[in-house]
C-alpha cells in the first residue's frame, strides 16, 4: 500500500507542470509544496505555529523544524522524511514538541501517567487542522474518551457536571501534561482542585467531617453517578461504610417508616445531618454538632 501511495504521489509530481521544476525554499517552508500531497499540512500555518513575526515559531524554519530536512523527500516521495511522526515512538515525537514546549504547565510531563503510558502530543493534539478539538471545551471530552473508555458512560449520568454542554471540561480538573497531584489534577490535591469551584466546602469548621477534609473522592465520583450529588453510593449505605452500626446508624434502607425511610429517601441521612461537609455552628443544643445545624 505504501509503495502504491508513493507511486501515486510521484505521478502527481511529474504530471504537475507547476511542480516539474524544483520547488523554492519558500514553497517548502510555507508548506505550499508539501500540500500537493499532504492536503491539510499548510493549515498549521494558520495557527500560532505560523506566526512569522514570532521568531520562535516553526514557520520561520518551515516544515523542517519538526519533520527534519525534506531535501531527500522532495527529490522522491519514496524517501521518507527524517522524522516520520506516524512511525516514531511516543517519546521521540514528544521530544520534538518539548524542544519548545517544555516550560510552564508542562514541566511535569516526564514521569506523568500519560508520559509513562506512551501518550504522545499528537495523540491528543491536531496541529495540521483549522481547529484542535482538544483545545475546545465542547469537543475535548471526545479526545479524552479515545482512551478513557471507563469515564465515557459516566458523563451522561443523571448526576453529573455540565461536561457535555461544554461548561466544564476535563482540563478544568486535570492537567493532561502532568502535575504533582493524584490523577494529574490541576492543583496539588483532589480537594484543592475541587475548591476551585466548591470553596464553601473548605472550612475548616468547628465540626469537621474527617473524609471531607481528606479527599472529596472518598464519597464522590466527579465523573457522574446515578446517586444524587455525585455520590458513589446512595445513603444510608455510603455512610454505613464508615459509621458504627449501633443506634439509627445501622438501620437498614427502607422506603417506608419514618426513621428508616429518612435514611434512604429524599436527602437520606442528610435529612437530619444537613451540613454534612462541616458546620461552623459553635453551639450544640440538641446534638446538632453532628452536622445538623
Amino acid at each position, binding site marked *: 500500500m505504501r509503495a502504491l501511495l508513493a507511486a501515486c504521489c510521484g505521478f502527481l509530481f511529474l504530471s504537475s507542470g507547476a511542480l516539474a521544476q524544483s520547488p523554492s525554499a519558500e514553497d517548502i517552508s510555507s508548506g505550499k509544496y508539501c500540500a500537493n500531497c499532504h492536503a491539510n499540512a499548510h493549515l498549521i500555518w494558520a495557527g500560532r505555529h505560523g506566526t512569522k513575526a514570532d521568531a520562535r515559531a516553526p514557520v520561520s524554519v518551515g516544515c523542517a523544524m519538526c519533520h527534519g530536512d525534506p531535501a531527500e523527500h522532495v527529490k522522491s516521495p519514496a524517501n521518507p522524511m527524517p522524522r516520520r511522526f506516524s512511525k516514531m515512538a511516543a517519546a521521540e515525537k514528544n521530544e520534538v514538541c518539548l524542544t519548545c514546549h517544555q516550560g510552564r504547565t508542562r514541566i511535569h510531563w516526564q514521569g506523568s501517567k500519560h508520559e509513562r503510558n506512551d501518550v504522545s502530543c499528537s495523540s491528543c493534539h491536531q496541529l495540521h487542522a483549522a481547529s484542535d478539538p482538544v483545545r475546545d471545551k465542547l469537543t475535548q471530552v471526545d479526545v479524552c474518551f479515545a482512551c478513557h473508555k471507563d469515564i465515557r458512560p459516566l*458523563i451522561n449520568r443523571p448526576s453529573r457536571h455540565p461536561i457535555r454542554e461544554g461548561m466544564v471540561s476535563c482540563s478544568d480538573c486535570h492537567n493532561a501534561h502532568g502535575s504533582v497531584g493524584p490523577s494529574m489534577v490541576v492543583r496539588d490535591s483532589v480537594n484543592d482542585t475541587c475548591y476551585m469551584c466548591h470553596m464553601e466546602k473548605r472550612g475548616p469548621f468547628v465540626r469537621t467531617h*474527617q473524609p471531607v477534609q481528606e479527599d472529596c473522592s472518598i464519597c464522590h465520583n466527579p465523573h457522574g453517578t446515578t446517586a444524587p450529588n455525585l455520590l458513589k453510593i446512595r445513603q444510608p449505605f455510603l455512610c454505613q461504610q464508615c459509621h458504627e452500626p449501633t443506634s439509627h446508624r445501622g438501620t437498614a434502607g*427502607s422506603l417506608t417508616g419514618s426513621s428508616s425511610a429518612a435514611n434512604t429517601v429524599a436527602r437520606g441521612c442528610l435529612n437530619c445531618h444537613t451540613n454534612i461537609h462541616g458546620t461552623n455552628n459553635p453551639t450544640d443544643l440538641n446534638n446538632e454538632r453532628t452536622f445538623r445545624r
Partner: protein
Amino acid sequence: MKTQAALRMTGIAAAMLAAFGSARAQQVEPLAPSALNTEASSVSLGAGLTSNDGRRSGEYNGITRDGAYGLIDFNLVRRDDETGTWTQIYGRNVALDNAQLRFEQSRQGDWGYFVDYARIPRFEPFVITTGVTGIGTPNVTVPVTPSATGIAELSTRRERLDVGGEKFFAGNWDVQLSFRNEQKNGARVFARGSTNPAFEFTPEPIDSVTRLMEAKLNYTTSALQLSGGYYGTFYNNNQSNGLNIIGGNAGLASFTPIALPPDNQAHQLYLTGGYNFAQSTRGNFKLAYTKATQTDAFISPVNPPQAPGTGDSLEGRVDTTLFQAGIVSSPMPKLTLRGDLRYEDRDDKTPVRVFFSGTSPTSTSNGENEPRSIRTSSAKAEASYALPASFRLTAGIGWEEKKRNVSAVRVVSARETTDEVSYRLELRRMMTETLTGSLAYVHSDRDGSPWLTTVLNDGVTPGSNLIAPIWLADRKRDKVRATAIWNPTDPLTLTLYVETASDDYSHRDNSNVGPQKGAADNYSLDVAYAFSERWQANAWYTKYDARAEQSSGVSPVFSAKLKNLSDNFGLGMRGKPLEAVQVGADFSYSNIRDVFDQQTVVGAPVATIPDVNTKLTRLNVFGRYAIDKASGVRLDYIYDRYSTNDWLWSTWTYTDGTTLSENQKQTVNFFAASYYFRF
C-alpha cells in the same frame, strides 16, 4: 431563586447540538468558536424549537421548557502578520443561560491578555411544591401546618469573569497573571430534621463570591524550566450569618439558625521546575507552602449562648507544606527508570477549645472541635525495558503512608497511620503496523497502625468499635487492564478496553460488619470504519459495572450487596453525499440498573428496596448545505429521552407538606435551522 418564563426567545448553540459527545465521529460543524486559527472565523445565526419540557436535558443550559430559541455563535480571529498580533472575539450560546464570551489579544511571544465571561447555571430538575416562603433569602418561613400551595423553581447561577495576561521579557523570563471572580446566586435543596420525627424543607440561600488569583514568574530554557508564584483563593459568603427559620414544627424550634458556609481564604507560594541533566535524564520538583484560614464570625444570635472563651470565630488555620521531586532517566537505550518522592504535611493549627460545655459523659464528643492534620509521604519507582518485537515490559512499585491526628473522643473508629504498597507490571506492544496494545496488572495492599478504641466522654466506657471505615480499612486491591487497537485493514479500526478491579476489605477483630468487597468492571469495544473518503461511521459499546458488599446493623445485622450495572452503546455517522452537502447522525443509549440487595444476617427480616432503572437515549441528526465556500445552512434534529423509576423523592413528603417530583419519562424533540458564514 429564579423564576423561569414559560416561553423564552434565547440563544442555543453548539452545546445543545453537541449533547451527544461520546458518539460523535468527528468534531461538530461549523468550526468550534474557540479555535485560534486564522481559518476559523465564523458566525452562525439561527433558530430552534423544542417540543416538550425537558428539565433533565435542560438542567445546565436552561432549555427546560418547550418553545422557540435563537441560535447565536461567533468566532472572529485575526492575525496581524506584520506584528504577530492576534485578536479573537468569540461567543457561544450568547443568548442562552450558559453563555460564554471571550476577548483575547496577544502579540505572540511578547504580550497577551484576555477577558472571559461565562454563565454556568443549574436548574433544579425536580418540581418543588411547597408552602415555604422566603426561598433564596436567609430568612425562611415554614408553615406550621402542612401546606404546599405553590411551585418553587430552584436554581443556581454562576457568573464567572476571568481576566489574565502575560508578558515575555528578555533572558527567557515571562510573567503570567490571572484573576477569576465568580458570583454564585440562587438557592438549593436543603432541610432540617430530627427523629421527632419532623423534617422540613429549608432551602439554602446562595449568595457568594469565589475569587482565584495567580501570579507566576517563569524561566524557560531548553535545559532548565522554573515557575514560581503566588496562588490565592478566597471565598466570601454574603449570607454567612446563618439561615434563620421561622415557624415550622415545634419539635424543630431550636434548629435555627443553621450555620451557612463561612468565609475562608488560602494563600500559596510555590516554586516548581525541571532540569534536563542530559538528553536522557530529567528531574523535576515542586515546593509549595499554603496558609489557609477561616476566621469568619460565628452565626448570630448563637443558640444557645456560646461556651465561655470560645471567641467570636474559630480562628481556623491550616498550613500545608508540599515537596515533590521526580527523575526520569534512560541509562541505556532500552531501559528507562523513573522515580518520584512526594511529601505533603497538612498541619491543622486551629486552636482546640471546648465549644460544647456540659457534654454528657455518655456522649461521643467531649465538646472540643477536631482539627484534622494529615501527613502524606509517598514514593514510586519504575523500570521499563524494551524487548524484542516491539514489546516493552514495565515494573513498578509504589508506597504511600498517611498519618492523621486523632481526637481523644470520637464518633468513628480511627487509626493513626495507613500504609499502602502497590506493585505494577505491564507488557506493552508498540509501533507495529496493525496492532498496539497493553496488558497491565496492579496489586496494592493497604494496612495501618492498630485501631484505636473509641471511648465515650467519661474517658472509661468504650464506644462502639465494630467498623473499619472504608478509607482506613485494610484493603487488598487487584486490577487488570488490557487495551488493544487493531487496524486489520486501512479503513477499519477496532479498539478494545478491558479493566477489572476488585477490593477485599478486612474487618475489625470480633466484628463482621463494615465494608467487605468492592469491584468495578469495564468492557469497551469501539469500531470505526471509513467506507470511503466521503462516508465514515463508528460504533461503541461499554459495559460498566460497579459493585460493593458491606454489612451493618446490630439487631438485625444485615448485608447489602449494591450494584450499579450499565450497558451503554453509541453509533455515529458522517457523510458527504454531494460536494455541497454534509450529513451526520449520532445515537447513544444507556441502560443503568441500581440494585440494593439487602439480606438479613442475624435477626428480623429487612425490607427489600426496589431496583432503580434509568434509561438515557439521545439522537442527533444534522445536515449541512454549503451555499458557497463561505456560507451555508445547517439543520439539526435532537431527540432526548430520560426514563427512570427512581423512588428517591416519590415517596417522600416533608412535614411541612413540601414535595419534590419529576416527570419520570421526559422526551424532548429539538429542531433547529441556522445560517453560517465563514470569513
